[in-house]
């Protein structure tokens, strides 16, 4: 087991290194644009050259990358080109907002997927099953940013129940915080449930046809007992693997939803970096999201190996 953990950690470190290099090279591949964005289009060539020299942007990419990586490993994400504010503390301030959004969306997705997937499996190939499968297919085709728009139309403009956008920290006003988070969480969670419904259904269908469940029925167990006591746990094991990966995916897809609802999370920080061509901001935000997604995947991987030794047999 320790050997498996060791190799997974090595693979994780390698992936992270290559991912950071890809992000760095992609963002810095266009020379000069950061200086123009920071100093304006009227900046003189001398001013642009001075800016590039000050920020090390005139160095070869490999030198820029190693210098940046060295700083990042010490927890220093550099300073914003636009306002010279340190980027690291700003990232730390924004992570809880995105984390709250992702967790709430994840709860929404599971609250929809587990019961619906189970019900569909219990009525396999009957009307209810087809209805649920059709519903999942429809959800899978709705863009989350359109659903967000529709939710605002209904809950804010028509019924005036929820605020259209904004963010209040949970510690300041929990009720307001939840009111502001409901629509963003629903937009992400409902769409995310489309995949999870299918996984839960497939997983439950498999378990319900297993011999031990048939035995339970033969011994007179009611459907409720057969499903809840004998099947749910086993059906949830493969489901949890996919669901956990989906959590990482949710964390990664917050960019648009945070923009729509004006949430000051890490996703909207990516857009701030892009709009201002503020490379330190963009790099820090994109790297943070990638790291979180990779860590979630690593944890899932390790948990799966611990829960099901067969998955690591090939190693």
């Amino acid at each position, binding site marked *: 087991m320790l050997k498996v953990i060791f190799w997974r950690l090595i693979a994780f470190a*390698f*992936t992270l290194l*290559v*991912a950071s290099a*890809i*992000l760095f090279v*992609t*963002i810095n*591949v*266009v020379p000069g644009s950061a200086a123009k964005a920071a100093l304006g289009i009227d900046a003189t060539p001398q001013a642009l050259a001075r800016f590039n020299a000050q920020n090390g942007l005139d160095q070869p990419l490999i030198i820029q990358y190693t210098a940046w990586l060295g700083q990042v490993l010490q927890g220093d994400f550099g300073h914003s080109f636009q306002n010279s504010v340190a980027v690291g503390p700003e990232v730390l301030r924004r992570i809880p907002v995105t984390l709250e959004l992702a967790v709430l969306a994840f709860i929404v997705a599971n609250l929809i997927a587990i019961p619906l997937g189970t019900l569909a499996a219990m009525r396999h190939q009957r009307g209810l099953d087809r209805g649920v499968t059709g519903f999942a*297919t*429809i959800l*899978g*085709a*709705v*863009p989350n*940013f*359109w659903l967000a*728009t*529709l939710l*605002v*139309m209904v809950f804010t*403009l028509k019924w005036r129940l929820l605020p259209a956008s904004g963010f209040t920290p949970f510690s300041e006003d929990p009720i307001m915080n939840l009111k502001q988070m409901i629509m963003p969480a629903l937009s992400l969670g409902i769409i995310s449930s489309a995949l999870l419904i299918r996984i839960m259904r*497939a997983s439950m*269908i498999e378990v319900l046809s297993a011999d031990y469940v048939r035995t339970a029925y033969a011994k007179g167990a009611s459907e409720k007992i057969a499903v809840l006591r004998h099947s749910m746990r086993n059906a949830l094991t493969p489901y949890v693997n996919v669901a956990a990966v989906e959590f*990482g*995916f949710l*964390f*990664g*897809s917050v*960019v*648009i939803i945070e*923009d*729509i609802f004006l949430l000051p999370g890490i996703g909207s920080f*990516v*857009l701030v*970096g*892009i709009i201002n*061509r503020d490379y330190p901001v*963009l790099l820090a935000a*994109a790297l943070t*999201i*990638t790291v979180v*997604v*990779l860590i979630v*995947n690593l944890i899932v991987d390790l948990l799966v190996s611990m829960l099901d030794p067969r998955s690591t047999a090939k190693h």
Partner: protein
Amino acid sequence: MTLDINWRRWRLVAFGGFIVSAILFVAIFANVVAPYSPYDLDVANMLAPPSGAHLLGTDELGRDVLSRVIYAARISMMVAVLASMVGLIFGTIIGSVAAYFGGWVDMVLMRFMEVLFSFPAILLAVVLMAALGTSVVNSMIAIGIIFIPGFARLARAAAIDVLRKQYVESARAVGMSNTRILVREILPNIFAPLLVEAAVAFSYAVLLESALSFLGLGAQPPEPSWGNMLNVGRGFMANAAWLSLAPGMAIFLTVLGFNTLGDGLRDAFDPHLRD
């Protein structure tokens, strides 16, 4: 039972195929189908609700929403097809080269693909657009790059299967060059699963393109795209809901069409995958 399964499979392909063909038809013949030019301003008719003259109403500059939705289908289809082609071509080359040569070539290529695959798609798309600059062509390239690892994995798996076949052994035995074996023997035999995957990639490309345009990173106004129309519509939700409903519905129907077509085709190729 068999008849029932065949019928259901066929029904999915037919349903998806019908929507996809209708949208492709509208996109190709946009200049014939659209009642107005998508750029014609009509200041006397700004934000007019749906009516006989403007079936889906007009936008904040008096432009016909239906015509703009129809012309936007062109951009979506173009991006979807070309981005999927970029992913398909480069993914197939990388995957089949990795499978054919094996060893360190396989390891290096596929590890790199795995790293690309580990990025959240929308994040990678946004970062690539920041580097490439905002335009329709660049969104095509960015989305295409995102698709490469998926196609590469599939191509590699399919190519490893083909490599075990006797005809590849025979080609090696008669002294065919590596390139010739790859192009003549392997590529034609791994194309079927890749084409099915392409149908699913189309729908994802439509979603990603509209997301990028929605964020202002894809097609730029006044060029109509479903994403940028939705973004503009957000500002008029209270008094002109049709500006948000029409392009959203167009994205939804297109993605639904490609998804069901892809699901149906996948069932047709591999009935074991149905559940």
